[in-house]
């Protein structure tokens, strides 16, 4: 479970990029975090994962505060970043071994997980090659495997589908569903509305650092017009939010 409690953040004094947001993502839920570029999605994810300091409020991951118990809270989630270019000079297996050491995964467990996941993402034969020689999609896959390696209860994914081929994209979405069915939490950001529509139990729409909608997709359609497409509703909401300022 992820709880975001009255969180605010500003980079400059008096200019809040995240303004008093509160969310609760329950166990077993796939939660979509939707917003335009610069709306505050990545900033929120960075605060959730301890990358950015929180100015006000707190974030709890399975009851552990990212502010007060950062190391314990970090054991509870796995993050898939939007940029998968990491450890380029390492081979895939070296990278996965490093991550496994950081999460104290036993040898037997890591062999089992690496084999299972790398075969699922069709990257098994490439594990001994340097990451710099991987395509963007393959890099994305190795990062995702790194995250899934320690089997965290809470998945946090920043634009995870970008760059994946159709098969891997489908596999990842299936994995997200499987993970949620097992009673775990999946939180992901996206600006692709179709993905949110097919995958999410609930969504939050963020605009200029404020949550402008929180609920299910049905709620959204019921509230803003059933006949309209999700895209139209989203754009109207953004427009309304801008006009209200």
């Amino acid at each position, binding site marked *: 479970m992820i709880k975001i409690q009255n969180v605010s953040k500003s980079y400059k004094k008096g200019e809040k990029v995240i303004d008093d947001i509160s969310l609760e993502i329950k166990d077993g839920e796939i939660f979509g975090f939707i917003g335009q570029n610069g709306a505050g999605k990545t900033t929120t994810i960075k605060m959730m994962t301890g990358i950015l300091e929180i100015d006000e409020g707190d974030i709890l991951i399975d009851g552990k505060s990212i502010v007060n118990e950062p190391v314990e809270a970090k054991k509870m989630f796995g993050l898939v*970043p939007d940029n998968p270019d990491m450890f380029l000079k390492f081979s895939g297996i070296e990278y996965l071994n490093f991550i496994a050491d950081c999460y104290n995964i036993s040898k037997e467990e890591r062999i089992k997980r690496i084999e299972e996941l790398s075969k699922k993402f069709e990257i098994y034969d490439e594990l001994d090659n340097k990451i710099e020689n991987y395509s963007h999609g393959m890099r994305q896959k190795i990062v995702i495997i790194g995250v899934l390696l320690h089997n965290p209860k809470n998945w946090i994914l920043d634009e995870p589908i970008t760059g994946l081929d159709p098969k891997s994209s489908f596999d990842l979405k299936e994995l997200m569903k499987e993970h949620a069915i097992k009673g775990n939490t999946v939180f992901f950001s996206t600006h692709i509305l179709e993905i949110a529509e097919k995958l999410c139990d609930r969504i939050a729409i963020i605009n200029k650092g404020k949550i402008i909608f929180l609920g299910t997709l049905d709620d959204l359609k019921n509230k803003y017009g059933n006949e309209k497409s999700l895209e139209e509703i989203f754009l109207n909401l953004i427009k309304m939010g801008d006009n209200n300022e």
Partner: protein
Amino acid sequence: MNKLKNIFNLTKLYIKESKDSTSILKKNLLKIEKKSVLYYLYIVLFLGILYASVEVISYIINMGKPELFINSFFLILNLFIMMKSAMVSLNVFYFSKDIENILHFPLKPSEILISKFNTLLYMNYEIEIIFAIIPLLVYGTMMKAGLMYYLNLIIILIIFPVFTSLIVSVIMIILMKTVKLFKNKEIMQFLISILFISIIMFIVSFYTIYLFSNNSLEESKIIVLNNINEKIVAMNKIFLSINPTSSILESSSFILVLFNYCKLIFINICAFVAFIILGNKLYLKQLLQAKFYYKTNKIKNIELNKKCKKKKITKSYIKKEFKILTKNPLFFIQCIYPVIIITLLFIVLFSIMLPAFIEVLQSEEYKEVRETLKFDIEAVCLIIGTIQIIGLFNYTSITSFSRDGKNAYLIKILPIDLMKQFIYKNIPQITINTLLSIFIFIVIKYKISNIGTMYILIMFLLSEFFTIINSFILCIIDLVMPKLDWNGEYEILKNNKNKLLQYVLIIFNILFLVFIKNLFEEIELNISLGIILIILILLLIAFYIFINENKNKLFKKIN
């Protein structure tokens, strides 16, 4: 005309792109930026060069051998230019990012080649501005030289780097012909740079041994200086451009000056023709090979049982840090290689100069000096100071976080305490400097036998504390002002202004040791060493507490 215009525009573009954060000439190419730390560092450097120039030149003039200065100065300047060219030419000609952006324009390979050469030349002019102008002006003033000397000086400073830069460029193009031998462009880049720098090191060592050999102490100083001067003139012949250059500045005969100018221009033209012919034939082909090198993946049947090993977090993290440094040749060349080279150079020069120095001290003439020499706090500070100054050419800690670039955020999401990660990040610099200082202490022990083993061990311990504290400071600098937004590994130091603070730290280290020397001058050595050790331990504890208490603030920029 169009060709010249293209070359001019390209040169301007390349020079702007090649600008380093420590470059003395900024923005408008010819304007010196005033409001920077660098500006003041250069002032200190210039004052140091001015002081050293006055001392050395007045000594040589007093000995009645002024030409020794000019002959040896241009030899040293030439070695500087060779070293700089060797270190940057590969990047300038083949691996700079700007090349890719202009390859689709309808430009002739020779236009790109000449513009690239101009960039290299420009970098060498910077070397001249820093190291050559002041000593040569001081020489002119002290020799009461006429207007002709200064006019010739301007022309010489313009012409002098051309020949060496051309020769290095030609060698580089020939070496690049071997590119097919190496499947990995980074290894090739690394090996060529190492090969080049090793050759220059060999030349420096060879020269030093040659200069200091067979100078009998029975002979008077003036005869020794004469011998050295003759040797230098003989050696300078190898470099072709040095002796004509020295002759132009030394000679009062117009005909001789003219003759030497003709000689200089002739060898430059020959070198330029060779450069253009070779360049036209090879450059563009090599450029495309180097730029669009592509490595295909091998499909391997991986044995996970062998490849997966569980390690403790500490070991795994530190291993990762070393792997990042060593698996990436550009990180290795930029961060570790300078300190290895400087240590080796120091050891070679120390091993050659020290016996000669000891021999000189044995003579009656230096009896008084000999008697004042003893192992005291001054000697301790000198040894530790030298090791620390050498160690500060290690750029591992100042780039410890910046090296992670855009994936530095991983530091924040790993379930490892930030303080622990800070210490792990310091381990590579501390390890490398420790190994080098062990190496230096072994040489000192071996060469200066009258320093007791216990003192060597205490000095090593003190030096270690300095190393750790310096590494912590550099790591904090990188943490507070990280340079994470880079596109190529070569940018890690090229545009990293933090390295200037590393130079400031060198000055601070020197001042601190001078302060310690003055403070403990009158106190017994063993007590002094004990007190210094306690001060350093307390300082280290204070640093640890400060970092641990403020880790969240210090890591703020890592995101």
